[in-house]
């Protein structure tokens, strides 16, 4: 599967997703500037992304823990998600995410 990620400068990156990995891990390993301070524990809100172009609705709903943690994210929009809570899967092939400002 592919992930289309837009960085904070607006540049688009096509990344190879790996089933079972989180989107945060793919972004981080590609060297994109995602802090992910807590390492994927849904405890810091520094892997915040906007899920774009209709993909938000195709995702499993955020857990209560993620909704709560988004309260600590900056510039939250209706399509905000924490990328450590998004798991790569074939049905998400082509998912578009934009890294939120820090």
């Amino acid at each position, binding site marked *: 599967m592919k992930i289309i990620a837009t960085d904070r400068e607006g540049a688009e990156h096509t990344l190879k997703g790996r089933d079972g990995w989180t989107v945060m891990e793919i972004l981080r390993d590609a060297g994109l500037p995602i*802090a992910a*301070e*807590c*390492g994927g*524990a849904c*405890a*810091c*809100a*520094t892997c915040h992304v906007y899920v774009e172009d209709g993909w938000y609705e195709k995702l499993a709903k955020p857990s209560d823990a993620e*909704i*709560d*943690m*988004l*309260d*600590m*994210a*900056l*510039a*939250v*929009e*209706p399509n905000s998600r924490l990328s450590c809570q998004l798991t790569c899967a074939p049905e998400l092939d082509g998912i578009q995410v934009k890294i939120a*400002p*820090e």
Partner: protein
Amino acid sequence: MSTIETDVAIIGAGPIGLFAVFELGLLDLKAHLVDILDRPGGQCTELYPEKPIYDIPGLPVVTGQELTDRLLEQVKPFHPTFHLNQMASGLEKLPDGRWKLSTDADEHIIAPVVVIAAGGGSFVPKRPPIPGIDAYEGKSVHYAVRKMEEFRGKNILIAGGGDSALDWTINLAPIAAKLTLVHHRDGFRAAQHSVNQMRELAAHGKINFEVASVKALHGDGGHLHAVTLSNPEKKEWEHACNTFIPFFGLTIKLGPIADFGLNLTENLIGVDTAKFQSTTPGIFAIGDINTYAGKLKLILSGFHEAALMAQEAFHICRPNEKLRFQYTTSSSNLQKKLGVA
């Protein structure tokens, strides 16, 4: 201002800084720790105090808080001194070869060895990405409430949905001329009783609550007059206020360590893998802040690094003494230091 002389100054009181105290203590080296947070534990207590950690050798499961508590118990015999709520702000080499580590609270620690165990750097408040916000910081935008009196009579806007946002909404409401809480949703991660209290205040017109985001700040010379709020229903509107307090928790920034004149690679300090010393003699880096071939950012790696660092720190602090390598299981000398013999 105070100046302290010791053997080792440690920047960062997270798990690795704490274990460094232990390893140094076994070699009779005294340590002072500086940390920007108000309690020891670093990321373990700040980010995941209640989350389980499963990869600490010998502890099948331990939370961030429990690990910190156990490390504090382990270092107790060595009486480390904590300088909390302070940022390590400057590092200077003295003519006698020792280092002077300064903090933003004007404390100075003089030591032959400095150990940087700062993780990703300093925890600092998250700054909303609103254009031009820096011009207002310290004048009308504040990330903490230190003296409540400074907020008396102000027209305050608080943003956020966590405990700090709710607690300060409740505490400042009686002294503010007007207070508005703004949050991106009508739900909060804060404690339920605080949420209930806030809703009560809103119901009685003591505060306003808006589901919205802050998009822009308006004012001049650092003095705020209004902000632009926005939500999907009402679109954008101006809201008059002269004080803005965003509460979005903390994030980690490298901070002043970047200016210590050390060799940095992508905000990490390069070290050798025998001593975990930086390219500057006497300055060591252990834990998440260092980098070397094969580095893994794991707590257990930092523990190992602390033990090796301590050996070299001994040679620097006690150049005329021979290091006697001993085991805690068999050495009555070490057991005495630990207070168990």
